[in-house]
């Protein structure tokens, strides 16, 4: 809980006097990396944030997109890494709670959750297993109770997260444009704190997120209360319907300190508040504690005298406490009192705007040699290897995870988890497609190309459902930014994402930066996580039943890009090689063409090709649809490669299309016309997943056996260790 000496000097000179202890606490909370983005803010500006559909309004914690017909979609992403690493259940659960309140703040109803989970090696490490299991239960218990479907996500295991956890949660909201909170306030308006009581739990949480785990204050655990959150959602939406909310902000990292100072700064107002008016959980809390407590499930609302009574009635109906803790002033000061006595009185722009840093960066030394490949042991039996691969934690089906999440509640979920992106129906008759993707293995080898790859993969998943990407969320997770090598990887990733976003005209509608992700044995691999939202005017058939004699097409070139592949890392235990690189022009061409043919309605099934390469992607189609397929590897487009490379390369921009033979000519014509690299590589039927090269049988698996292994192995591993 303290400022750097330089920052203290800075604060003292800005306010022209020595700060009080409460002021120090408030400023320390707000100037923490987590709240102020002091290391990253200068650079984040490079991302394109505008576009024809983007609605920007001051003070929003989530991005807003106009989806037509008078409706908007909101989206946001957050992580709860440090708290989840010490208390996975509560940390993950309150992570869901936090991002939901960001969606609510804009005046929209949360309609979907996505979760990205990363842990150490669960095959060997009992601690990782414990973290994983409890984080999943935490997310399930919270989201299920709220009645917000968790419709997608991802799970990944990598040694770099040993004794640590990355828990990312994205949420999507939906509402009428006219119901968006306009965020305005005038002198004399009332400041209301609504929801759970303020306690000592979570004190110091957000500095905690900015410190590395070893030095953390282990008292910072938060107990989730999804029941209160559910009531807050209903109360706030009812208050919104009655126009009772002038401005609103959720309480997250930095508690009241951040919420009050940021609201005042964003709206160019002052706020005077009395800590005695805050409903606390325990008696005798010090003003400093009240100001920085990170108790969950609280919202800050600006209303006025005329509306207060109705707001109180609504809170009473939903049995939640609401306290008038202060009022709006015109002096741009944040004034914190206890009764008559002043504890802090600071200009809001000083509190809300930490001095931004220009951190040095330097290309990490390891990158000089990382692309060199070593000689690998040849695979003697691909079928055997593949069964092991399908059972491996990163490749295995994640049904054990999403089967615990209510993904149907809200009755919007058209495409449910287990495919590529999830698809939700909207009240304007359109369809929203969402997916999040990360890939630390690629990003470690090449932070720029890896990050671009995550972005493209998320787009690909969305495109596979027939939706056009309309917005992106980024969550940049790295180690200690004070280390120039780490900061370089951050900048490279950010630049890559920016270039891709600009080329594809996909605006960034929200994001988050999480730094200081350090485990006892060093920094995590760079882990940018990208969420993509896509919109489709109608529902497209992208997963209908596959029959015998249907054909399999691959779109896009398979390249010699094995670095960071699951095959290198899991099968050969080798980290290195060249990671996949997205060719923007090829990517765009493939994306547009696939969208176009989906719209023509001639496809039965569309699947993207990513982790585990062609071999895994094709097997996934077979296992999900429960039908065999015979594949000729010679027909796969791209340079001539060794068999294992054709099977397991993770080159981007590739799609698998399934269609009836009778539609093949039509498809080929379109693909040829658009100069798309493609190959007609397989024919469905039978009970075997079979890969041939020339007349040689390379791999041969029984679909039912493969399916059983793939579906059950993660559960087996978690439950029976």
């Amino acid at each position, binding site marked *: 809980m303290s400022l750097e000496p330089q920052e203290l000097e800075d604060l003292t000179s800005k306010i022209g006097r020595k700060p009080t202890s409460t002021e120090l606490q408030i400023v320390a909370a707000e100037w923490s990396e987590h709240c102020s983005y002091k290391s990253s803010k200068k650079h984040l500006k490079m991302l394109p944030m505008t576009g024809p559909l983007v609605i920007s309004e001051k003070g929003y914690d989530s991005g807003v997109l106009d989806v037509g017909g008078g409706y908007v979609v909101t989206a946001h992403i957050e992580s709860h890494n440090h708290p989840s690493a010490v208390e996975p259940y509560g940390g993950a659960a309150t992570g869901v709670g936090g991002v939901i309140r960001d969606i609510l703040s804009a005046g929209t109803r949360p309609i979907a959750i996505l979760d990205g989970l990363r842990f150490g090696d669960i095959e060997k490490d009992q601690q990782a297993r414990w973290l994983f299991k409890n984080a999943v*239960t935490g997310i*399930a*218990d919270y989201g*299920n*109770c*709220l*009645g917000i479907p968790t419709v997608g996500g991802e799970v990944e295991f990598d040694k770099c997260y040993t004794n640590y956890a990355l828990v990312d949660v994205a949420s999507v909201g939906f509402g009428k444009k006219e119901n968006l909170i306009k965020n305005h306030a005038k002198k004399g308006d009332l400041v209301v704190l609504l929801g759970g009581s303020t306690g000592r739990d979570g004190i110091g949480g957000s500095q905690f997120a900015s410190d590395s785990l070893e030095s953390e204050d282990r008292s910072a655990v938060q107990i989730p*209360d*999804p*029941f209160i959150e*559910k*009531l807050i959602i209903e109360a706030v939406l009812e208050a919104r319907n009655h126009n009772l909310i002038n401005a609103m902000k959720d309480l997250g990292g930095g508690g009241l300190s951040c919420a009050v100072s940021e609201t005042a700064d964003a709206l160019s107002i002052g706020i005077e508040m009395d800590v005695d008016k805050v409903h606390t959980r325990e008696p005798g809390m010090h003003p400093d504690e009240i100001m920085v407590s990170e108790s969950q499930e609280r919202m800050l609302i600006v209303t006025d005298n005329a509306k207060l009574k109705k707001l109180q009635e609504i809170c009473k*109906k*939903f*049995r939640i406490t609401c306290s008038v803790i202060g009022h709006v002033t015109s002096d741009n000061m944040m004034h914190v009192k206890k009764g008559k006595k002043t504890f802090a009185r600071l200009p809001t722009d000083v509190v809300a705007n930490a001095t931004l840093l220009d951190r040095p960066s330097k290309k990490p030394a390891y990158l000089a040699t990382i692309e060199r490949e070593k000689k690998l042991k040849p695979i003697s039996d691909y079928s055997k290897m593949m069964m092991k691969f399908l059972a491996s934690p990163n490749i295995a089906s994640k049904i054990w995870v*999403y*089967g*615990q*999440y*209510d*993904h*149907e*509640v*809200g*009755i*919007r*979920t*058209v495409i*449910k988890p287990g495919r590529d992106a999830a698809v939700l*129906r909207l009240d304007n008759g359109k369809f929203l497609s969402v997916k999040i993707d990360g890939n630390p293995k690629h990003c470690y080898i090449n932070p720029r190309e890896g990050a671009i790859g995550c972005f493209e993969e998320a787009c690909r998943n969305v495109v596979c459902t027939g939706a056009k990407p309309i917005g992106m969320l980024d969550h940049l997770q790295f180690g200690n930014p004070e280390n120039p090598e780490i900061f370089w990887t951050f900048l490279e990733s950010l630049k890559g994402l920016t270039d891709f976003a600009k080329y594809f005209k996909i605006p960034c509608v929200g994001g988050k930066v999480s730094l200081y992700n350090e485990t006892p044995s060093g920094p995590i691999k760079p882990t940018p996580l990208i969420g993509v939202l896509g919109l489709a005017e109608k*529902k497209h058939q992208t997963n209908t039943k596959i029959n015998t004699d249907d054909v399999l097409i691959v779109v896009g070139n398979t390249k010699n890009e094995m670095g960071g592949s699951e095959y290198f890392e899991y099968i050969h235990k080798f980290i290195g090689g060249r990671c996949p690189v997205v060719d923007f022009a090829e990517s765009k061409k493939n994306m547009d063409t696939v969208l176009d043919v989906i719209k023509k309605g001639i496809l039965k099934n569309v699947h993207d090709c990513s982790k585990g390469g062609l071999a895994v992607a094709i097997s996934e189609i077979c296992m999900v649809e429960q039908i065999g397929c015979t594949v000729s590897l010679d027909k796969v487009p791209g340079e001539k490669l060794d068999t294992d490379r054709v099977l397991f390369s993770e080159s981007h921009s590739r799609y698998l299309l399934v269609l009836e033979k009778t539609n093949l000519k039509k498809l080929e014509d379109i693909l040829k016309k658009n100069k798309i690299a493609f190959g007609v590589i397989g024919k469905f039927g039978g009970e075997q997943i079979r890969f041939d090269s020339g007349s040689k049988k390379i791999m041969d698996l029984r679909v039912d056996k493969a399916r059983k292994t793939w579906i059950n192995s993660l559960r087996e591993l978690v439950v029976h260790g």
Partner: protein
Amino acid sequence: MKIGVVVFPGSNCDRDMYHVLTDVFHLDTQYFWHDKGLPKNIDAVILPGGFSYGDRLRAGVIAAHSPVINDVRRLAAKGIPILGVCNGFQILVEAGLLPGVLLKNTSLNFMCEWTNLVVENNQTPFTNQFELGQKIPIPIANGEGRYYVDEATLEKLKKHNQIVFRYTDSVNGSSYNIAGVCNEDFNIVGMMPHPERAVESEINPIDNKPSSLIFKSLLHTIGVEN
């Protein structure tokens, strides 16, 4: 003709149920907050799913003490059709309006998946349009969905034809694979699966017609042509 959807603090399928009743089946539907009474001239009452009171202590037990339950009891005694879905079923059981108890699933986890039911009693207000033995693809989503009754009660349920739906497979360890039951008069029905999630083809990947019959049975019972 009016249908009441009762809303408890923490209910979260109330809006889904309302949507289905109004937008799909064009019924005059109204929400009723748990601390208020129900009108006398109501035609059916539905207790939707969710997590009333956060499932604390036991799913449904706190809500079972709500004032509105007295009215549900009164209406039920008059023969008005009452349907409890998921948490609504748990509440009806905890209120003693239906036999048995719902325990934690044997997997100890929340389970969200598609299952298959068979209709065992087609004489209730919610099943009278089914053939006996008809199959219904339908999702479940619950953590405490394992229906339990002791042997003697099970025999009684069988004898009085109170078993309404059974799962075709052993999904969560329920006694006799029971998914839904009714009272001796057949007018109160409780079921763990979610029919409101399965009546629209857009979100039902298998077949939406069987689930629709649950609502069409209600329409038939209260005499609405649809």
